[in-house]
């Protein structure tokens, strides 16, 4: 089968890019002819063609085009409207624009534009809607897409490569308990709630430290300023470390050193850091929002609220309860092996593509 994979861009340390590279490699392993089309690519080991070349590359109605839908992109929408090839929408979800209201007009408009295209893709009756989580698939089934055309496939990831790296802890703080947050600095990720929880913990447990690994987009500088202001308000500057350019080795060391991955995000289409933590044995406390309950399952403590007292109490309990920590680690490793290990993902992708062939 000839399969064109269309993605807005490819960059290192990016979930959609990792998924693209992983599924491309798996499809080639199954014997398919695969080409990747993107507007830009840097720092990745994959030959990429310009999106405009996809029209001539797709020759037969039996060919397949797989679109990594994670932003609004008129080119992809136009292609899906007119192509004769079979179409797969690989949906990673798009953050609802209201999260960015008051923080960045650019982000708000961009996300609104991306979500506006959901209706169009739903009405196209594509051959397959491939969601990273049940939460993502709901965006299509709630718009009338036949569930028989939907399939669940968690994203391909770099966890095994991360596991192989030698940890580099030179820039990491030495607090205990050490709270870890992995993800870009954005309003939906709820860093402000993390700082509130840190403030409550700081009253009860001297030595507690929050480590955040993630970049701040210049367009969200207002959110960055608000985060620093919140840190000032609570006077927890010396208990907080923000690293924007963490390497893989530092990420590996952070998971190893952290007592807990604290994920209070209010919107995630899947949340790769959860499976990184599960695989590497870091207990997780998370907000029960969007796709997080499905991704984490019973391998962590889930809360409907980000109430700082509740989060602080959960951290303290986890810090003092060896049995609970060990139980969560054991469950995390088992859940990763059962649902998210590369071999499981490869089997899922193979089944989805076979379904298309049938």
């Amino acid at each position, binding site marked *: 089968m000839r399969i064109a994979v269309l993605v807005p861009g490819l960059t290192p340390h990016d979930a959609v890019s990792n998924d693209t590279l992983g599924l491309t490699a798996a499809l080639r392993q199954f014997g398919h002819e695969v080409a990747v089309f993107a507007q830009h690519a840097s720092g990745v080991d994959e030959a990429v063609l310009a999106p405009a070349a996809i029209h001539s590359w797709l020759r037969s109605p039996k060919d397949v085009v797989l679109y990594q839908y994670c932003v609004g992109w008129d080119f992809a929408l136009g292609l899906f409207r007119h192509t004769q090839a079979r179409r797969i929408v690989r949906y990673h979800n798009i953050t609802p624009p209201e999260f960015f209201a008051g923080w960045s007009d650019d982000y708000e408009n961009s996300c609104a534009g991306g979500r506006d295209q959901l209706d169009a893709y739903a009405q196209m009756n594509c051959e397959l809607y491939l969601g990273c989580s049940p939460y993502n698939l709901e965006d299509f089934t709630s718009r009338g897409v036949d569930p028989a055309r939907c399939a669940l496939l968690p994203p391909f990831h770099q966890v095994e490569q991360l596991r192989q790296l030698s940890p580099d802890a030179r820039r990491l703080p030495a607090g*205990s308990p050490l709270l870890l947050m992995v993800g870009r600095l954005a309003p939906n990720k709820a860093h402000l709630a993390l700082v509130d929880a840190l403030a409550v913990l700081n009253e009860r447990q001297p030595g507690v430290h929050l480590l955040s690994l993630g970049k701040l987009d210049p367009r969200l500088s207002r959110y960055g300023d608000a985060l*620093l202001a919140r840190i000032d308000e*609570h006077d927890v*500057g*010396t208990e*907080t470390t923000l690293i924007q350019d963490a390497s893989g080795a530092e990420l590996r060391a952070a998971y190893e050193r952290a007592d807990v991955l604290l994920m209070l995000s209010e919107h995630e289409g899947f949340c790769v850091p959860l499976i990184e933590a599960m695989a590497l044995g870091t207990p997780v406390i998370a907000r029960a929002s969007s796709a997080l309950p499905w991704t984490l399952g019973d391998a962590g403590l889930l809360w409907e609220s980000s109430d700082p*007292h509740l989060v602080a*109490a959960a951290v303290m*309990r986890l810090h003092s309860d060896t049995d609970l920590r060990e139980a969560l680690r054991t469950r995390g490793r088992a859940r990763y092996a059962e649902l998210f290990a590369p071999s499981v993902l490869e089997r899922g992708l193979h089944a989805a593509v076979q379904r298309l062939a049938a």
Partner: protein
Amino acid sequence: MSSSPQDDYLERVKAEIRAEADIARARDPLVRHDPPSRAKKAQRPVFDEGIDRARLDYAIGELTGAHYRAFIDQAFRALLKRPPDEAGSEMQVRLLAAGASKAEVLGNLRWSPEGRRVGTRVGGLLPRYALAKFVRVPVLGYFVEWGLALAGLPMLLRHQRAADTSSAAGFAALAEAQANTRRELDQLRAAHAALDSEHNRRSEAMRADISRMLLRLDALEEHARSPHASAHEAIELRHYVHAINHWITSLQRSLGDLEDDAARSRSRADALAASIDAGAEETSARSARHASWSAVLATRLPTGARVLDLGSGDGAWLAALAARGIAASGIEANAALVARAQRHGLAIALGDPLAVLTRCADGDLDGLSLSAATLARDETDIAVLLAEALRVLRPGGQLLLRCEHEPHRFAAADTTADAAHHNGALLAAAGFVQPTNLPAHRAHAVLALRPA
């Protein structure tokens, strides 16, 4: 405040956490929002982007020295206190390419809504920016710009001459670089020709080999057609059958060895379990030495000290520590022993002791107790183990190494006394100080201090 339904165990834990949170909230309902002191504010984390956020005053000359993208980057960082975003940067680059002055670009940024919010002051920018905007007024602006250009003609001529000199220097540098590139290209061509020649030579040799092999193949085919061929094939076949028989015998022998190894491992595990289950006499001896060792350890630890015991076995040593009032928790890799210890109410968990040690924070423990028989399999393990022990103990923390069931397995020595000496030397080599031997019948322990 509710949570997603999880399994019974987690729901029970979460109910307890909720209760703890309610108590904490009632005790301290509001998170303090006191303004930070000046010293604390200086310690807050920063987004390291090379931006001096505190500086809000510049002279225009400081911002116009750089060119092209470096100029745009510097302008964004100074006036908007952030790195340029891609779209914003492109727009300003297009303005420069269309002939706009740097003052106009700076003014656009400074008096944009974002720039106004930041409020950076740039001395001398306002009149230049106003003039840049004024010359864009149709007709009138053209004449004003024309007049300004006329008035500035002498200066323009000086700039032109300076630019000529700069261009000439640039061209000279370019010519030199071009000559260097040409030289490197010639070298590459020569190397390529040499490689090409080598490739041809090897291809010829390969072709000759292939011809010889084809001839040999023809000869073999001819030979196979001869009347004696079947007899030769039978001899060759018998040779192959003998070789396969030999291989199968070797394989069976290897499998037998593996089974013997497995049986030996089982009997070793059984022996270890049996030694733990030893009779009353052994139990009594063990209780006596544990009481003695824990008494020494208790005198060297502060009140409320945190002690971790790795390789706790059935928890007898943990129980001895608890009897001395020491808050100790244990890790054991054998599930049956963990279950037995937990039935006696001891704080013990199932896990890989070395992995648990690796996950401990630096300087987190007041005391660490290691069971040599359970933990170490070779010298590499021991070195890693002791390095980790040094890391997790606070300065002044105590390390106790117990050799009870299999003292010789940990220390390559013939007697218990030799083993104690060897272990003391190992601890000293790992950086511990003041090793103290605690002898006992058919066992020993070494107590050492993590230096400050």
